């Protein structure tokens, strides 16, 4: 659906995007994740045809973004960061204007605007001036703008930035709903957001792709050390740490201070071999301690992100 090859953008001598290769297939929700200034917005702006790449090619549905700019733009719905709409227009007039520019006929236009009002929850604010709206409402108008012609590809730049938690959940639900049929690319620097909304995550740092894959594969693929949480009743730290420390694969055992004095909580750092939880269980079973918790903590996305994008 979207095929990007060696995409590069220079602002003067500053290289914002450096030889990015990316393929996005139909019906995928892809999250572009990266610290501020990593080149996310620049990449999205090039995908929408707003900025011209310094070099590299973008093909969308096998159409070149240079030669068939109009056809490509018709396929894409784009919501720039913080939804810069015309402040002096009424919401209805604005959507009507967008529909008009997209060449929709008047009956279809009215129908579509009503559909979008329901989908994005705009029915009550159609008669308000865009400038009066709160940030969350503006964002929803922006979403309606992007979805006007039912585009096959939806590109959203930080769709939830600056929203309150309720609005974030609402917007995320809308994105999920759209993402069932459409190709969605969104950028964010909030990890939980990418984790919650996306099928696939592309981590960008300093204009390059640092990692690319599904949330699961990113977590597993990174390997290395992982952590197991264990809570015991009726156990003594000295004894327990000696017993568990002896298990093959455990590198370190640490006590977690908890509010409950009867409960001994341990954090176990393990080097790698799997089936470790079975061995710990067997070890505890041999004693008369009572096990109340045994969980393995996957390497969090946050940790992966920090490892990949840390300043060296």
């Amino acid at each position, binding site marked *: 659906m979207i095929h990007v090859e060696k995409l590069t953008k220079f602002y003067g001598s500053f290289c914002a995007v450096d030889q990015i290769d990316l393929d996005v297939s139909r019906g995928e929700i892809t999250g572009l994740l990266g610290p501020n200034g990593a080149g996310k917005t620049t990449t999205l702006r090039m995908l929408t045809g707003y*900025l011209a790449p310094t070099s590299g090619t973008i093909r969308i549905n096998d159409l070149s973004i240079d030669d068939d700019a109009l056809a490509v733009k018709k396929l894409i719905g784009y919501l*720039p960061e*913080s939804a810069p709409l015309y402040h002096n227009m009424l919401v209805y007039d604005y959507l009507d*204007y967008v529909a008009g520019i997209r*060449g929709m006929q008047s009956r279809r236009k009215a129908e579509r605007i009503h559909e979008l009002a329901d989908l994005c929850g705009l029915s009550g604010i159609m008669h308000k001036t865009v400038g009066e709206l709160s940030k969350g409402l503006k964002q929803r108008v922006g979403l309606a703008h992007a979805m006007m012609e039912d585009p096959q590809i939806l590109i959203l730049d930080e769709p939830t930035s600056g929203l309150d938690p309720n609005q974030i959940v609402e917007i995320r639900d809308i994105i999920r709903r759209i993402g069932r049929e459409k190709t969605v690319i969104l950028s964010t620097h909030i990890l939980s957001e990418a984790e919650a909304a996306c099928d696939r995550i592309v981590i960008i740092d300093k204009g390059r792709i640092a990692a690319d894959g599904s949330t699961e594969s990113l977590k597993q693929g990174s390997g290395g050390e992982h952590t197991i949480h264990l809570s015991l009743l009726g156990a003594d730290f000295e004894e327990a740490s000696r017993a568990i420390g002896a298990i093959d694969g455990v590198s370190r055992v640490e006590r977690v201070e908890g509010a409950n004095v009867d409960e001994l909580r341990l954090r176990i750092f393990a080097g790698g071999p799997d089936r470790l939880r079975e061995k710990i269980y067997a070890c505890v079973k041999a004693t008369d301690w009572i096990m109340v918790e045994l969980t393995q903590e996957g390497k969090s996305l946050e940790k992966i992100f920090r490892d990949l994008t840390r300043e060296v």
Partner: protein
Amino acid sequence: MTRTFKIFAKELRDYFVSPIAYIVICIFLLITGWFFFSTFFIYNQANLRTFFTLLPVVFSFVIPAVTMRLFAEELHSGSYEMLLTLPVKLSDVVVGKFLAGAAFASLMLVPTLSYAVSISFIGDLDWGPVAGGYLGAVLLGAAYSAVGVFASSLTRNQIVAFITGMVICFSLTLFDKIAIFFPAAIVGVFTQIAAGYHFENISKGILDTRDVLYFFSVIFVFLYGAHLVMQEKR
């Protein structure tokens, strides 16, 4: 074509839903009306010549004030990004915005028709030069709007756009007036590129294709310039 028209209609409507249009029209009518009628009865001639002599100067600062927001405001607020990622061509945007500015300039002239009508009651008005004058005024307004669109495309600051536009328009207006300061060899060139000179010809009632062509050339050159500037921003 539809897209150009939609952009044109939106921009023109924007003028009238905010107070800008009314303020600018008032200022325009006050200045032209006062300068025209303060000497009208002294000359005691039934024509609009003073009005049309004055018009290029007044247009030089009124039209850049009208057109300064066309690109600068959108660049400043970022809405330009939303506009340009819709299925439009850059030329649709430039032409649509220009037409809105030019249409506004023409609409501004409509109330001044009352000068002509009232003069025709008190004297024997020759309608030929009046018709020529208005045709010239529409062309001049369009040409200066193109200059204004160009100035507005250069910056995201409306004040800078206004001043840039005003400087270019004033230069075009005054080139033939200050021609005596230039060496004889280039006086001809300066006269030819002066909007004031071509406007004067038309407003005398002489319709020469060279003068009409001049205004269309100015429109084309500045719109093309604006197109290049916006293209370069990508």
